[in-house]
């Protein structure tokens, strides 16, 4: 994923507005698609969305910063979200967290220089009976162990 060209973004927003409509209620679906495609929502993207939905850019910024799955900073191709909520913690989240940090050479909250991986914590993802659990983009991984994590990371590298 590279920084998108302005024309590409304008076209993309155009397509999305046609797909979802130009009402305010289309804002979140549009932003979610931009996030998915480009890995973040740039200042320019926010301005363009605001322009096409006829709202103030500050409104768009307010929405983007409210939701933890939307970001103004570039995220990696693979966003890894490890659940840090209690049931996963009881099930051994710390060992998994240590393995992730070591194997990716990243701390939680960081994105790798090559924008391949982002490592984050998240709250309960509804897999509490099969913890520790994590999401990589939109896929879910359960009953994690250090060796399972190593295998998963290797397959993505």
């Amino acid at each position, binding site marked *: 994923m590279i920084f998108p060209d302005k024309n590409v973004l304008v076209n993309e927003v155009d397509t999305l507005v046609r797909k979802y409509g130009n009402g305010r209620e289309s804002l979140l679906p549009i932003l979610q698609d931009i996030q998915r495609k480009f890995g973040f929502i740039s200042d320019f993207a926010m301005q363009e969305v605001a322009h096409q939905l006829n709202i103030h850019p500050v409104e768009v910024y307010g929405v983007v910063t409210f939701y933890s799955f939307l970001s103004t900073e570039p995220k990696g191709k693979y966003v890894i979200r490890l659940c840090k909520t209690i*049931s996963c913690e009881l099930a051994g989240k710390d060992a998994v967290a240590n393995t992730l940090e070591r194997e990716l050479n990243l701390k939680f909250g960081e994105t790798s220089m090559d924008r391949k991986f982002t490592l984050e914590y998240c709250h309960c993802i509804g897999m509490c009976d099969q913890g520790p659990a994590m999401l990589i983009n939109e896929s879910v991984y359960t009953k994690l162990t250090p060796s399972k994590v190593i295998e998963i990371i290797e397959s993505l590298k």
Partner: protein
Amino acid sequence: MPIINDTLFFDEKAHGEALERALMMSPQEVVMEIRESGLRGRGGAGFPTGTKWMLALSAKADKKFVVCNADEGEPGTFKDRVLLSEYTKLVLEGMVIGGYAIQAQKGFIYLRGEYAYLLEHLNTFLERMRKENRLGDNILGTSFSFDIEIRLGSGAYVCGEETALIESLEGHRGEARNRPPFPVNTGYLGYPTIVNNVETFACAYIVMSKGAQWFAKYGTEKSKGMKLISVSGDCKKPGVYEVPFGITVKELLELVQADRTKAVQIGGASGICIPMSEINRNISFEDIPTGGSVIIFNEDRSMLKVLRNFMEFFVEESCGQCTPCRVGNKKLLEGVEMLEKGECSHRYLNELIELGKTMQIASKCGLGQSSPNPFISIVTNFKDEIMSNSIRGNNGR
């Protein structure tokens, strides 16, 4: 999937033809049937579903909406995920029944972003319903038309609160609104809207297929029917259980084969933590109400560590709109840190409990109103343990 006694959800044969039956009745009759069943909302608060639908039906407007709350963000809950993925028909046709009952034209499923992997399955199912004329124009040859659209959340727990959810659907920050007005009058885009939990719609389906009397046979006086419970933590058989309301915590612990139990958190992070001396209490709206999250802690677990986890959750998930919740949760978390270091005197602990009680009253929405629950119940029920840390650094963890 483990079950006990009779079962509503997990027995395909019990499902029947609810939609057909509902569409042969008038909307008023459907609402009456739901009222008679005694069904109460399964999302946690337990508002009578029939009453909610009645209010929305009687509201005068040219558009009405149905919202299925699939935000399932309460720590320790996963039964809605299981219903959506394995008992899809009950949920989606339950929504169509709700739409018919209040005479709405459109429904939304607000699916948490974390469950985006369910999108494909749900959309395929919706497409099939449209082909079979169970969704779309003139459903099953009647004059009733209704469609369902899925909207994704984006990782904010507070968006499960119904007015924050509506804000989010409208393209705003997920900040709770003052109530009243309630969504049944002023909901999505200002139109009458019913917001119900995933399991509530599945229950409505079952009521319509088996009848109100049959449904009301199960459960207790004020909590009718069966409840799905998501069990995790220290036990041999975690998972989703379907149990009758009124089941004691003790019975549940036996069912899931928990041993050496010290404490049980009921209702997720916003619920309460009970010690073994209270396990004869039961799960129902009369005693311990819950959306269905049960987390078990054995004797090896540090209750302070548990409490810290919950308080970090609330500090991070508070939307920050109102002071009691924004500041109060930070204070409570600091209190936990002081307890860990053995620096929290009993007098200060009592002040924090009072602060928690203020938050319960003064916070704007359910998040801040319930976030002090684990703090108050853990420091009260496990006082000896949490007050045992030494100021000299033996932090007992």
